[in-house]
Each structure stands twice: as C-alpha cells, then as structure tokens.
C-alpha cells in the first residue's frame, strides 16, 4: 500500500456518543421519568433493607394498642390486631418487589424465548407459538388465576404434608413455597404473552437487517446469532415494556391478594392489607389509605419511568 493513510481527523464523524449515554441524557430532561426513577429506587431500597428500617416486627401484636390512628410511635397507626401498619407496608414492599421481579423475570424468559423462536425461525414455529400466545391471551386473567389457585392449592398442600410426614424435612412445612409456586406461576402464566408478541415483532424486523445476513455468512450457529445479534438489538423496546410490566405485576398481585388468591396472610402484601382495610375504612381510614397510597405511588412511578424510557430509547418518537 503506497497510498497515504487518511487523516483520521477528517474522516471521523461526530464525537462518539453511545446509545445508552444518549438515552440517559434524554431521560434526565424528563422530570416525570426522573420522579418515577427516584420513587422506584427508594422503594427498591426499602424492599431490600426492610428489616432494618421497621420499628416493629410485622407480626408482633399489641392488643392493647389496636386500631390506633397515626402517631409518632406508629407512623401509619396500628391495625385490628395492634400490628404496626408502617412495618407491614414496608414488608409489603418486599413482597411486591419480590412478586414483580420474579414474575416479570419468568414471563420475560418465556416470552423472549418463544417470541424470538417464532420470529427468527418462521413457519411452522411461528404459527404454533402465536396460537399458544393467542390462547393464553384469550382466557380472562383473573378467572385463570382463580381457577389455578382453587384447583391446585389443596392437592399441593396435601402432597407437601404427605412429604413432610414421610421425610420429616421441615422444608415441606413452609407453606410459603405453595404461595410462591402458585401465585408466581399463575401470574407468570398470564404475563408472558405480551412479551412474546413484542419480541416476535422486533425479531421479524431485525431478521432482515444486513448484519444478520452478514453473521450468517460467517457461518455462525443460529443460537449465537439469536443470542448475540438478534436479542441485544431488540432490547430497547423490551426494557420499556419491562419497566411498565413491573408496575403492572405489583398491581396484579394486589388485585389477587384482594380477591384472596394472592400471597397468603400473614405474609404482608399491599393487596391483602387493602382488602382488610376496606372492611373498616369508615372507622379507620388509615388502614386503607396507607397501603393504597403506596401501591398507587409505585404503580404511577413505574409507568412514568416506562414512558420516559420509551421516549429516551426511541429518538425518532417525540422530540
């Protein structure tokens, strides 16, 4: 090569700005999104460090101090068993985050896998997976969860009891596993279809991009192309959808707890606190107000954050 090397200063385009840094700049200008982010971070902190923040144990009852109005000793008052409502709300945050994260993670894994397979490999996988998705979406959510809980809870509980009798392993005495398995499982079951559809649509459009053909021309396996070329490029819209999905999962869990098919008492959940508080709200409005307010705040925060991320990650959307 005898030619002179090009001067890098001339051919260099604008200074390098990565997609994520660019998105972060746009997100920072969105006040509502930053508010949402702040609330989410705060709630996450509360959820993680819950036991160190609460003045009382969420189960300890003080029958002498039942149904007290908010005071300095009990920030959100006490409930009908004299339990500190503030501590229960904090523990409820833990439950809500646990449910939201686990359910969204399961739904995301199922949805992304199925959606990517449907979009990438085309017929006949596409048709079969989309049938499954439509089927799952066609069943009313609440009905499905109620049916699953009503029909499976007792058999599983009986099986666990039998296992305990046979092995004396205390693991089988923890009814919380039933909660997790049934509640998380049934919620994930109704949450994955939107992810599958979103990922499929993304993959369908990404599949025709030249860099996918280029990757195939390199002889890479389909698995590598999916994991490293297709899915990472589909991530933007997925992040937006996950942020909104976390909020939805919290509301969903509360709705199920409210109907009595969610996390079982005495594990505190915003939903069963709302359900308890609703019976006595004319006399003790704080029992309803505290969990309902926090639930509302969380749901609004996630939705603002999702909207903000949507604008930040889609430069072509609103300016």
């Amino acid at each position: 090569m005898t030619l002179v090397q090009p001067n890098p200063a001339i051919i260099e385009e604008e200074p390098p700005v990565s997609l994520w840094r660019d998105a972060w700049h746009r997100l920072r200008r969105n006040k509502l999104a930053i508010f949402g982010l702040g609330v989410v971070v705060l709630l996450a902190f509360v959820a993680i460090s819950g036991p160190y923040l609460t003045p009382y144990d969420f189960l300890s009852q003080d029958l002498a101090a039942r149904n007290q109005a908010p005071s300095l000793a009990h920030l959100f008052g006490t409930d009908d068993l004299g339990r500190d409502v503030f501590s229960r709300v904090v523990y409820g945050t833990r439950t809500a985050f646990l449910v939201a994260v686990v359910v969204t993670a399961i739904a995301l894994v199922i949805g992304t896998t199925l959606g990517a397979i449907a979009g990438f490999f085309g017929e006949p996988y596409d048709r079969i997976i989309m049938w499954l998705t439509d089927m799952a979406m066609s069943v009313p959510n609440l009905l499905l969860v109620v049916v699953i809980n009503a029909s499976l809870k007792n058999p599983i509980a009986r099986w666990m009891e039998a296992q305990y009798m046979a092995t004396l392993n205390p693991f089988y005495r923890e009814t919380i596993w039933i909660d997790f398995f049934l509640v998380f499982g049934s919620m994930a079951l109704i949450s994955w279809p939107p992810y599958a559809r979103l990922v499929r649509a993304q993959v369908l459009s990404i599949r025709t991009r030249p860099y996918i053909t280029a990757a195939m021309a390199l002889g890479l396996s389909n698995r590598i192309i999916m994991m490293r070329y297709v899915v990472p490029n589909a991530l933007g819209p997925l992040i937006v959808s996950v942020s909104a999905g976390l909020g939805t999962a919290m509301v969903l869990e509360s709705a199920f707890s409210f109907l009595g098919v969610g996390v079982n008492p005495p594990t505190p959940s915003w939903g069963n606190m709302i359900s308890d508080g609703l019976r006595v709200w004319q006399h003790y409005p704080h029992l309803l107000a505290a969990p309902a307010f926090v639930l509302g705040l969380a749901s609004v925060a996630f939705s603002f954050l999702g909207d903000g991320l949507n604008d930040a990650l889609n430069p072509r959307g609103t300016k």
Partner: protein
Amino acid sequence: MTARNAQERLLDVKGLTVEIDGRRGPAVIVDGIDLHVGKGETLGVVGESGCGKSLTMLSLMRLLPNKIKVTKGTAEFDGRDLHKMSTRELRKVRGGDIGFVFQDPMTSLNPVMRIGDQLCEPLIYHRKMAKADARKRAVELLRLVGIPGPEERLEAYPHELSGGMRQRVMIAIGLACDPKLLIADEPTTALDVTIQAQIVDLVKDLRNKLGMSVVWITHDLALIAGLADRVVVLYAGTVVEDAPVDDLYANPSHPYTRGLLASIPTLSDAPTARLSSIGGTPPEPGRRPAGCPFAPRCPLAMDICRREVPKLEPISSGGSHRAACFAVNKALKAA
C-alpha cells in the same frame, strides 16, 4: 496471471438458476449462469443494478431471502456442491473457507457489539481459538487492513468508525479465517474514490500475500480493470461475456459490453460532449423476452436474436474469451 486460468477450479458454477416466487407466479432472476474461479484468480463480476450479481453470490452461500430459491444448477466449491451440503458442513464453509464482504458497511456490522468481539467471533467459532489468541489475531487483522491504532479500535462500536473504517473492518472479518475464496459484493460502492482506491490496493496486496481467490462484484468497469484477472459480464441474469481482463477492454465483443465501456466518460472527451448511454431498460424478471434478453436494446439485433437464446461460445482461438451473441458469432464465422 491469465495462465492460471487453466489451473484447478476452486469454484465451479454450472447452470445456476434462481427464481422468485412473485405474486404473478415464479419469475426467473438468474437464468442458467456458468461461472468458474481458478485457485488464486480474481474474477470480476460486472453488470448493472438488478442483473442478479448479488443474488448469484448469495445463492452460493444459501443466504437467499425468503421466496427466492435456487431451482437448477450446481455450485461446486473445492469439489463439493454447496447446494447439497448439510447445514453443518455449510456453516464450516461460510466464514471458514469462503469469506464474504457485504455491500453496505453502515448496516452490515452489528451495532451493539464491539468491533473486536465481531472480529473474534469467526475465529472462536471456526478456529476454536481461545479468547486471548483471537484478540491477538484480531489486532493483526486490523493492522493488515490498515486501521491505525488497532488495539483501541477493538473496543470501539461500529458507529464510532467512519464508513471507510467500517468497510475495512468488514474486510478484516471476511479474511479472519484465511478463506480460500473472498466474495466481495460491491465493497467500495458506499465509499469515496480515494478510499475506494485504498481498498482495491489492499485486496490486491492481500491476495498476493495470502494466495486466495477473489470474486469482486461491481458495476464499476474502471475499478475492475486494475484488479481482476478475468471479467464476467452479466445481463438480466445471464452471462453475456466472459474474458480475460485485458482481452475484454481491448476487444469487447458483446454489444452490451461495448455499450458499457462506451459509457465510461474519459478525460479526452470534449467538455460539451453528451455522455453515451445504452437506450432502454433491462427486462423485468417475469417479463423476459423470448430470445436474447438484450435484443430489445441491441443495435445489432437480428431476427434470430428475438427467437432464440444465444449460447456462450468461444470467440478467441484459445477459447478463454467467450460471448453469447449471434451477431458476434456470425461476424466471426464470416471472417
């Protein structure tokens, strides 16, 4: 270099036909193409947009988009038919034995992956290299294609590089596993002229160093003159002329080739002279004329041209220069 043509064929394509499943039924896009590339040879494939250059090459790697299929023909690479290989074998050939450089450097690199990782991918996958060795080789490759500061560039994302740099990265990826054949699909179309010249020099240089064969697809006849050993001219999915590069420019035979060469402006033209062009447009796939596909635009067209399809026939004594034209063959026999 022409002497090598008689040597072993690395790639031998016979009667390759590609069809698209259109709304109005199947239409032929590539119509029985014969092509061959010798070991160490550089073949230029020339033709205007839409004549089936890229599809021919994509079909060799079985990378055709949906609804476009190979319906006839064989494509032997190193003695094995690419179209009959199992997917597993084909994957070894793709990127391993045949390197592919794509047309558009702006969209052919994965935007969310660092250059280094994309370069290492074929090395780790085909050569089973350890990550550290692959990175060393990646630095070597970037240096080979003339990218300054290769160590830092490994960490860059595609959008941080200019078009010329990206095209060099594409070439480096194509060369990663020392392929026997490099297929370059208009690799310089998106670049400006100085960088074009550098890339051509680079490929020539590498070809001489590594002894690989090259198929260079372009519509730029001037560019191919300095690069190829032999040139194949495609028109509407058929080979109309196949000649050693010097022969083609000294003695273009097919009226289409002549038209193409005549339409290259030269510096000695009067500034006011009109640029020469070939009248008409190429036929749409599915509406090909009955005879020679070029007949409707051909100044030499005779009755037979509209009825029968001419075959590719030798027009020089050695048989290395071939053209598919009744008029040329007739003149030859008359002489």
